[in-house]
């Protein structure tokens, strides 16, 4: 198994992106904290770097399919090893981003006059929550990229229209689900309330979400082929 090599390659190829991202977030948080402290107009400030990291890792997940798979193909690495190395890297990147995100989010706390914490739980719980959320988003990004890679042109066009429309409808539905609904939809607001009740509950949900999309990710990986012949198929 060449998991170590694939993991090392992913570290080498993505380290610059991660360093730049964390430098920008740290710099922005620091500068905006100082600015907020000087303005002193009674406003509050929280950069929520950990939340921004979630979007970053979603993009990283999207970028982890085709390029990594081609590197694997070009260097005698099986799909299984490629996927396992992604899993390892996703866990590492999610943990790193969660820890650094929560730590960076502590910077505004140095100026208590303007700081209102976004999350009130202990840092350890926050890190666990963001770790599972990050992992879920990376898995989702990987699955999206993999599914898109496997599709033919017609399917890509159909999905490009159907998915955003469905997502918008789902968001509208969920936002309205908080209001009294018919018995068939009652579990949804109950579930959302359960999730919002504590970060541990939410972490559990995102962990299951990550596992589900990792399974989907493996399904799109296990028979993926080289791009031009894939397209021919």
């Amino acid at each position: 198994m060449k998991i170590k090599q694939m993991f090392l390659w992913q570290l080498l190829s993505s380290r610059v992106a991660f360093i730049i991202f964390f430098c920008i977030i740290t710099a922005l948080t620091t500068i905006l904290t100082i600015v907020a402290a000087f303005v002193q107009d009674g406003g509050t400030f929280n950069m929520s770097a950990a939340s921004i990291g979630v979007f970053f890792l979603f993009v990283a997940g999207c970028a982890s399919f085709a390029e990594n798979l081609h590197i694997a193909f070009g260097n005698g690495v099986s799909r299984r090893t490629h996927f396992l190395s992604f899993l390892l890297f996703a866990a590492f990147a999610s943990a790193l981003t969660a820890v650094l995100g929560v730590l960076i989010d502590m910077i505004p706390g140095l100026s208590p006059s303007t700081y209102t914490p976004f999350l009130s739980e202990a840092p350890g719980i926050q890190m666990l929550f963001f770790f599972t959320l990050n992992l879920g988003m990376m898995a989702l990004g990987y699955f999206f990229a993999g599914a898109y890679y496997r599709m033919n042109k017609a399917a890509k066009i159909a999905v490009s229209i159907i998915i955003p429309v469905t997502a918008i409808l789902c968001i509208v539905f969920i936002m309205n689900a908080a209001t009294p609904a018919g018995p068939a939809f009652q579990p949804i607001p109950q579930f959302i309330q359960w999730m919002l009740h504590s970060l541990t509950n939410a972490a559990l949900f995102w962990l299951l979400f990550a596992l589900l999309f990792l399974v989907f990710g493996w399904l799109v990986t296990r028979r993926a082929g080289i791009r031009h012949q894939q397209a021919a198929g």
Partner: protein
Amino acid sequence: MIEVRNVTKKFRNVTALQGLNVSFGENRIYGLLGRNGAGKSTLLNLMTNRLVPTEGFLYMDGFPLTENDKALGKIACMGEDTLYEPSVRLRRIFEWTAIFYPGFDSAYASALAEKFGLDVRKKIGQLSTGYRSIFKLILTLASGAEYLLFDEPVLGLDANHRQLFYAELLARYSKRPCTVILSTHLIEEIANLIEHVVIIKNGRILLDRPSEEIQSMGFTVSGRKEAVEEWCAGKNILGSQEIGGLMLAHILGEHSGVPASLTVTPLDLQQLFIHLTNS
């Protein structure tokens, strides 16, 4: 040894390979020939796990090849596709390849790049078709792998670079024997290099023989047109060429009773290929 057993590969309505059986032994140079769409690239992609067979199995030294990192690590393949992002610099890819192939010879790769005039500071996206081929050739030659697979290795290369490639391939082969599989349409250029010929037609193996055997399948006679035409009458002629008053005829069968006025040379592989693969 790489064994391909009853392999079928289908792409929706197209069957690229149909119940294919072929073996590639150790330390030999193979020529993998076939017309466009015959299934050569598909076979090479299956041998490198870049595609999954619809049916059948591939083995290396008796062990399954598909999804086997250890076996796949013994193969380096220069395929049609460029598997690296256009924004990556060549020297970076040399470094990455060394991670995956412990036998990768960086010094050799650099020396080859210099011989071919390839600037390793460039990005892949900045290379012309020819230099992209050269870059992939260098990666494969310097990989240190036991099986070197080349799919259209000289695509876009000028005559000088093609000659240099063949010379470097032979030098690598003699210095460190390995199995080489050359898939190309430039049959005349590799005819003297290859020890074994595999011809694919419509996804099936049409011919799988050592070069010596193929040469003994026929012969070429040349001489004055009238003399060649007279002697060849009634014989199994694969093809012929005329230049002025001279004629060259490729004939299937044993050469006996050829008059002294005609010159006999070994059978031309390209003529045999054209004859066998013409529909």
